[in-house]
């Protein structure tokens, strides 16, 4: 997966979690939490979905790495490079 694929994937997962989320004007450098009104339960959903789909394990101490779309791409790129 490329970085662009990964950010698309994250957006798709969030859309599944929250069908009212508004992705227009989403700034990939800014925290998803503030822009989409996500809470810690939503981040847990993202982690669980990634595990279910791609068998990747994200330990709790790494959750902060999922803060922005860009940081998600950076963190997940090595794990998803063969997908």
């Amino acid at each position, binding site marked *: 997966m490329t970085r662009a694929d990964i950010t698309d994937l994250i957006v798709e997962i969030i859309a599944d979690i929250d069908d009212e989320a508004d992705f227009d004007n989403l700034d990939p450098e800014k925290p998803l939490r503030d822009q989409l009104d996500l809470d810690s339960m939503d981040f*847990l959903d993202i982690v669980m979905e990634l595990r279910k789909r791609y068998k990747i394990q994200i330990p709790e101490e790494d959750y902060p790495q999922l803060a922005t779309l860009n940081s998600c791409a950076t963190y997940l790129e090595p794990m998803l490079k063969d997908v």
Partner: protein
Amino acid sequence: MPTHFKYCKDRYDAVVIGSGLGGLTTANRLARCGHRVLLLEHHHRLGGLATWFKRKGHIFDVSLHGFPYGMVKTCKKYWNREIMNSIVQLRDIVFDNPQFSLKTTFDKQDFAALLTNRFGIDPKRIEAFFRRVDTMNFYDDRTMTTRELFEEFFPGRSDVHRLLMEPITYANGSTLEDPAITYGIVFSNFMNRGVFTFQGGTDQLIALMTRELEKNGVTICTGARVDRIETKNGRTTGVNVNGRTIGAPAVVSNSGITNTIYNLVGTDCFTDEFLEQADRIRVNNSSCQVYLGIRPDTSIEMIGDLIFSSRSPVFDSAELLDVNTRSKTFSVYYPKTRPGHDRYTIVASMNSRYEDWSKLDEEHYRLAKVALIDRTLDDLERYVPEIRAKIDWQEAATPRTFNRYTLHTRGTSFGTKFEGLDVSRSIFKQIGGLFHVGSVGIIMSGWLGAINYGVIVANDVDSYLRSIEKV
């Protein structure tokens, strides 16, 4: 329909012990992740403390007094839309005590207006208070108590402290001495939008949840009490029910945390350090309730959905726990609670200590219950005149009742104090594959807390099951 225990298979991916909202949610999430799940419940009905019972045409809800708006999102994500769509607001929350009598929708806006207009507090101060509690989270400083928080913002204002604290004490048994963060998190949850309930009643909620579990393939067994959690070489291997072993690499206990450690596993399986931590766990208080059924041909006026009623001069945690407390909540269930079921019921709830009830012999126990009902009717008389003539059913539950139905240590209504959370979160580090879910740490209790905790624990279990799959 629940299966009889004898038809259960010998092996599952995960066994969930107990069907409180935490256990139900973990079971549902794990099944959705594709695991084979067995849910075992000792009672004949699912739901744990989220329960109800029928008497003489009345349906009494035990723990449906109100929950925060967050339930809407949580039910949508982790259960289904049908469940979410039944959540409705309770708009008339009443406080009535010697310091003030008022009605509120129990949300931030209304509270701020009340604090300004009725209590004469500077709006800037109120705003600062809300900002502080809104931004509190679990990782913050745990040493500040709620009393200190209140004194910082509203020094010497025992009336304001009462307005802010009384509902939360009823909601989760916490006191002014508990960490301010537990107060902040729970209070902000309610202040988000107000108090909500489940239209159709607890029976309807649990029926919908049961259907969802079955759709997702969970095997459900009621009347199945787990006697032991089995372990071998530091890992769990399954559970034992009435002499029969069911194997599973993951076991999730929704039994109380103290029960799980001391009775289901046994102390010889844990390190001394962990046990020292476990020994320090304080379980929360229990409850007394009085259930009153209004005669079918009688109606009562709208007197509020939830009434925080007290005759104590000031808020006092000890007074609230006393057998003879003059402080209680009345939940009034109008026909709107269960559309189509044209009845009124009233449930009075009080915080209570197990020790005050456990030592009574049968005759004194019976008399104490009669006196409890009597005091409750006296207090209710102020809101519903001639209440005694209007009811055709009266019954009391005590800490003994809660202990009998849930097996919880000292009949605790709201799990444990704050320290229980760390123990619950770290039990799997002691015994591989063993997890705990259920009311702990004040913040993980209540309907919303228990369901969200169920999701958090399901994530841990799923992660564990997938990690051992690979090996």
